[in-house]
């Protein structure tokens, strides 16, 4: 569980950064004249928390296979999209005007979700490379080469 929380926390911080970028890009594209107050600084954090909830809820003690993990990740992504859309547009009466915004937000969430995993994987790649290096030193020591 501790390791899972650590993974989720790393995901949260990567998400917050990417949400900032997405808000900037979507804002420029869809509502370039819209102005926010200081509360805008809180949005990436709130969205980051919302995005982390399904990950915490869907924790499994079981060792999942690659396919089970992929299916779980897909369900998690759909849940995050649904939660973010509900949070952002839930209080409005949805009309056609909102459709491009909903599509834009959904796509952004999906892109962010994929990017979070790509960045996490790149960090894991670095860790794995360090572990392999340590492993080689361990093996050399164990076999008396050093």
């Amino acid at each position, binding site marked *: 569980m501790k390791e*899972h929380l650590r993974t989720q926390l790393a995901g949260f911080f990567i998400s917050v950064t990417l949400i900032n970028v997405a808000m900037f890009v979507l804002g420029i594209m869809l509502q370039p004249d819209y102005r926010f107050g200081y509360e805008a600084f809180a949005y990436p954090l709130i969205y980051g928390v919302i995005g982390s909830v399904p990950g915490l809820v869907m924790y499994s003690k079981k*060792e999942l296979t690659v396919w089970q*993990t992929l299916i779980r990740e897909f369900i998690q992504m759909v849940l995050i999209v649904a939660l973010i859309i509900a949070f952002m547009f839930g209080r409005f009466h949805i009309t056609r005007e909102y459709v491009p915004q909903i599509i834009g937000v959904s796509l952004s969430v999906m892109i962010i979700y994929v990017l979070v995993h790509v960045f996490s994987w790149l960090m*894991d790649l670095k860790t*794995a490379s360090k572990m392999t290096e*340590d*492993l080689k030193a361990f093996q050399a020591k*164990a*076999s*008396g080469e050093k």
Partner: protein
Amino acid sequence: MEITVKTIGGTEKEYIEIGCHRKDERVDEIIRFIRSREGILKGTKEDRQYNIPLPDILYIEAVDEKTFIYLEKDCYESGRRLYEFESALISRNFARISKSVIVNLMKINSIKPSLNGRFSCVLTNGEQVIISRKYVPDIKERLKGGSV
């Protein structure tokens, strides 16, 4: 047969060399004895019991109620539980990497990232076994510390 024992420096790798005219049953017996000194496990395959030298083992896996010992090409069954192997082999370059697997650290070629914060060990025969999230910190520490 002449026996020569040579003392070598502490930095050199220890070795045993056998000089013989041909590798016959007598030489095989000496090799088996030497390997048995490195440690063996007992495993069964097709109702026959075998002595498996520790350095030949890739990993040990528990599946349902059974425990299997995997070598490069062979697989043997054992009546012992995984936790028994874990306590017996921890000082022999073996490490627990998941709920169901103990791996021979000397038989890992490389480590690569897998999905969901897990890592995958690529073994000398190309097979891959998963290091689960829970065991990643222990493995890192074991490799970094170089406790042999």
